[in-house]
């Protein structure tokens, strides 16, 4: 286990991974090489390829595949339980560039935001997702504006950093699958300040994406219904 640093704010980087043995080691190495050297935890979401074996980080192994949202939420709960000040997410497939994390965390350190999203659409550099996925993102942007008046250019981005207030909300309520848009609505409706930082995404270095055409359609339908129903729910309180 990594040693806690008492004085400076502590950050835990959560790396959810499902059968990403080929890429997760590099993601962890990149995160640990950052100037602040944050602690890293890999959440192995029931992999069968030895994901997490031998990586220089804490590894939490879910007993079976629980879904990306449940994996991320496990990391968030770990961060809350262990008293971390900030929690960030980097996907285990290597698409997220860890070097952008300091920019995200700087906004949290300065108290200018509760939740910072790394957006690939602010400056439109690097790997841009497929046409249908961009269309989906456009639809989700519209939904977000309608649901809570929040402007987010890349609502499906899995690259983010949160302070304890936002983490507490997500630790209590986070969808098991396709959680990103739902989470933004929850945070915005709870009064969290959401800020975007431009980032460059890479193509995945190994494995295949789980989002094919039927799943993309399910994603859009599921999130649309969840947002519609979500407006009827009482606001979440989270745990501190």
């Amino acid at each position: 286990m990594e040693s806690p640093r008492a004085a400076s704010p502590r950050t835990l980087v959560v790396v959810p991974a499902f059968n990403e043995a080929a890429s997760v080691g590099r993601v962890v190495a990149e995160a640990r090489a950052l100037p602040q050297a944050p602690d890293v935890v890999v959440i192995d979401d029931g992999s069968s390829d030895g994901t997490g074996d031998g990586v220089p980080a804490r590894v939490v192994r879910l007993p079976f595949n629980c879904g990306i949202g449940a994996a991320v939420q496990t990391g968030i709960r770990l961060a809350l339980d262990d008293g971390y000040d900030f929690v960030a997410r980097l996907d285990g497939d290597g698409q997220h560039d860890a070097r952008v994390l300091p920019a995200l965390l700087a906004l949290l350190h300065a108290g200018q935001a509760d939740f910072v999203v790394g957006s690939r659409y602010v400056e439109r550099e690097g790997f841009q997702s497929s046409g249908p996925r961009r269309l989906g993102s456009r639809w989700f942007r519209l939904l977000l504006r309608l649901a809570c008046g929040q402007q987010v250019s890349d609502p499906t981005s899995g690259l983010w950093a949160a302070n304890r207030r936002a983490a507490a909300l997500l630790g209590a309520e986070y969808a098991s699958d396709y959680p990103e848009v739902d989470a933004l609505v929850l945070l915005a409706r709870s009064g969290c300040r959401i800020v975007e930082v431009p980032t460059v995404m890479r193509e995945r270095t190994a494995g295949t994406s789980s989002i094919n055409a039927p799943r993309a359609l399910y994603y859009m339908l599921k999130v649309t219904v969840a947002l519609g129903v979500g407006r009827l729910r009482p606001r979440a309180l989270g745990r501190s």
Partner: protein
Amino acid sequence: MAIRPFQIFVAASSLALTALVLELIRRRKIKDELWLPWLIVSITPFVMSLWISPWAELAHLLGIAYEPALLLMAGLLLCLALILYLTVVVSTLMRQNLRLAQEMALLRERIESATGARSRG
């Protein structure tokens, strides 16, 4: 009003189902929270078949020419209500199962970190 064959069939089926539910409750095969909705669903057709005239009048009021169709519709609605209730129960179990998996994974990581052991589940 004379007893019609379908009434006997509905009453007999309903009683048989009720007997089966009671036996499953007796053997503790159905959990406490779930036996009440099953008893309601199984006994309701029997009660409806005993007092057929109010149902016949209701069927006429609703414009249903074939009165037993109302019984079938009521049975279908009861089944749908039961499935909906079971969906709520299953959803609760899924949520609790997920929380248990998360807690178990976190605890295992803490134990492995403390003891220096490393295992794969």
